[in-house]
């Protein structure tokens, strides 16, 4: 029974235009079906021989029910169901001559999916924890999934979860498929629930890089700074004036975070990524932040992160410059409400004061939750990052 409109749930076969043994080809009208909207001719989309008619004239069946069995080249192309779900049998209504049958293409019917039994509390908690509900067994009444099932599942998934697991990348082995599942659940939830908006700006890095080069000449090799430390510091200081981007969306409301803990997206060599946080970046100096970055990358890749680092991020910074990317339009990591992306630094011609010069430019982007902030605030935040990077000595 084809769906002859989005609101159609059932149809009644009024008459067959074919009988078993008939040869049909694509486009032939095979049956008349009555719906709330009138009598409609049903076309066939396969070529073959009608083997049997499953639904008799007068029977009302749901969309998706098998109406007839067709053999293509003598082979069955569709297995019959045990029994068609007959809703009601009524005498076949004579087709009214006045109601001219309308031929419309058949939209393949989608099987109605079985609705999962999940308690409201369990559903809410599963969203918070990023647990994929269909994959966990329910132990409540009638096999329903309860809060206990969700929390048990979260415990099990934890060792492989990005951004929530201390054991990610642990030497004893990494469940990449589980990690992928958790990333999938979190990212799908993010895109489903968070109304993202995106802004970007191009920042001149000349002063920052010049200052960095001068600074690094004074330092031993092991203590040299990378420009990513400047970026992270700039983000942290800019957040001080834009608290709407630093916090969590929980229970239908925004909760600003107490500190500024910047999650740094780190990709793992085996695949997958994690998002450990550098705590209180706004209160640390550049050396401390640099030390934290090196330490985190090292420990992330050897699997020795601490749980607080994995769960405490209040915003995420993704720097894909190393990968040659120009701009990053990221997916916010729930329950965070913003993600800052940086691309690679490239020399570009820039006009300033009537002169064109080559400048090292970087693209900074913001993906933010529109439930919490708007483009005006987001724009001010990007401008603040730019301004901070023009005074690198203060970072």
């Amino acid at each position, binding site marked *: 029974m084809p769906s002859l409109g989005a609101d159609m749930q059932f149809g009644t076969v009024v008459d067959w235009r074919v009988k078993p043994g008939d040869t049909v080809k694509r486009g032939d009208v095979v049956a008349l079906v009555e719906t709330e909207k009138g009598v409609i001719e049903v076309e066939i989309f396969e070529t073959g021989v009608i083997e049997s008619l499953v639904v008799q004239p007068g029977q009302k069946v749901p969309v998706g029910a098998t109406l007839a069995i067709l053999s293509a080249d003598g082979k069955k192309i569709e297995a019959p169901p045990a029994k068609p779900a007959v809703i009601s049998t009524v005498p076949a209504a004579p087709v009214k001559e006045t109601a001219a049958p309308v031929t419309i293409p058949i939209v393949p019917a989608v099987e109605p999916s079985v609705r999962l039994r999940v308690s*409201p*509390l369990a559903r*809410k908690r599963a969203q918070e924890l990023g647990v994929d509900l269909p994959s966990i067994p329910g*132990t*409540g*009444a*009638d096999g*329903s999934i309860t*809060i*206990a099932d969700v929390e048990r599942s979260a415990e099990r998934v934890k060792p492989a979860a990005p951004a929530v697991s201390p054991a990610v990348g642990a030497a004893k082995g990494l469940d990449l498929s589980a990690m992928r599942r958790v990333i999938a659940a979190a990212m799908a939830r993010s895109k489903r629930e968070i109304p993202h908006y995106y802004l970007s700006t191009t920042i001149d890095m000349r002063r920052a890089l010049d200052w960095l080069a001068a600074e690094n000449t004074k330092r031993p090799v092991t203590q040299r700074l990378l420009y990513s430390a400047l970026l992270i510091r700039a983000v942290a200081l800019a957040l001080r004036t834009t608290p709407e981007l630093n916090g969590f969306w929980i229970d239908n409301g925004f909760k600003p975070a107490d500190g500024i803990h910047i999650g740094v997206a780190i990709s793992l060599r085996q695949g997958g990524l994690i998002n450990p946080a550098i705590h209180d970046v706004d209160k640390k100096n550049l050396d401390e932040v640099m030390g934290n970055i090196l330490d985190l990358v090292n420990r992330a890749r050897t699997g020795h992160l601490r749980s607080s680092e994995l769960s405490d991020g209040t915003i995420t910074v993704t720097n894909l410059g190393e990968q040659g990317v120009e701009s990053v339009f990221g997916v916010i990591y729930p329950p965070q409400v913003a993600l800052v992306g940086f691309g690679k630094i490239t020399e570009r011609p820039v006009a300033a004061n009537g002169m064109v010069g080559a400048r090292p430019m970087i693209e900074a982007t913001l993906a933010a939750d529109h439930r919490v902030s708007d483009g005006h605030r987001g724009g001010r935040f990007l401008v603040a990052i730019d301004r901070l990077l023009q005074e690198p000595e203060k970072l």
Partner: protein
Amino acid sequence: MRAAIRDALLRDERVFLMGEDVGRYGGCFAVSKGLLDEFGPERIRDTPLSESAFVGAGIGAAMGGARPIVEIMTVNFSLLALDQIVNNAATILHMSGGQFNIPLVIRMTTGAGRQLAAQHSHSLEGWYAHIPGIKVLTPATLEDARGMLWTALEDPDPVLIFENGLLYNMEGELAADAGAVEISKAAIRRAGQQISLITYGGTLFKTLQAAEDLAREGIDAEVVDLRTLRPLDTATIIDSVSRTHRALIVDEGWKSGSISAEIMARIMENAFYELDAPVARVCSVEVPMPYPKHLEDAAIPQVPGIVAAARRVVIGHE
């Protein structure tokens, strides 16, 4: 109850008791035994067998400045006075534009379990809880039986007190200085973590017993005694359910269109996202109350049924 009525008669000379057999016979449950001798026929008044007439007289007396306590033998008989209660007592303040309030207290017995059959044994207090303009009290504990009457008499509007017949003969200790209690809040009679058993009146002690039985199985149940069905203390219900995430309502009334249905509706309205299991009910079987003991026992909520229902809510099976 007798102490409460006597106390009220002593405290306020506007208070009098009126009803069928309350005087010479001492009340059909002996609640007013001895009061006629102490207070005389002006204040302990036997009435004809006409609920509509003496409830109407009570309304008139209340309008005239008295503080009547009208006793109706059972809630089944109160239906004869439904017009007086619902169309007059509950509405006069509103329809007089606030000129006349009705400080009337009506007491009646409710509930089954005494083999008094379908004429005397129904639990219709939930029906009365439907009506704006009256308050519906359902004391279960000794303290509430003793203390709710005076608070009800002080209320400027009509108050109905439903006394479950099975509770009259329960024994317990009452403090010598026991007195008036507030009537606006439900009470947590037993604190617990895993399920809120919400009940009142005649099923309170069965529910407390069920909670004890559940505790032996490792299920920690909280017992909420509603105490007042109108106005219903929604906040206490929601607070409890929000902590336990599960609820079972135990009510001797029938399910259909009942106070238990109303409580479920409020939980859905206010605590849907706190629920970890469907809210369940243990109520009376929807039949006129049978007379034979074994059928009457089977018709009303009992401890094993409450335990089984709670188990199903908490662990998914009985």
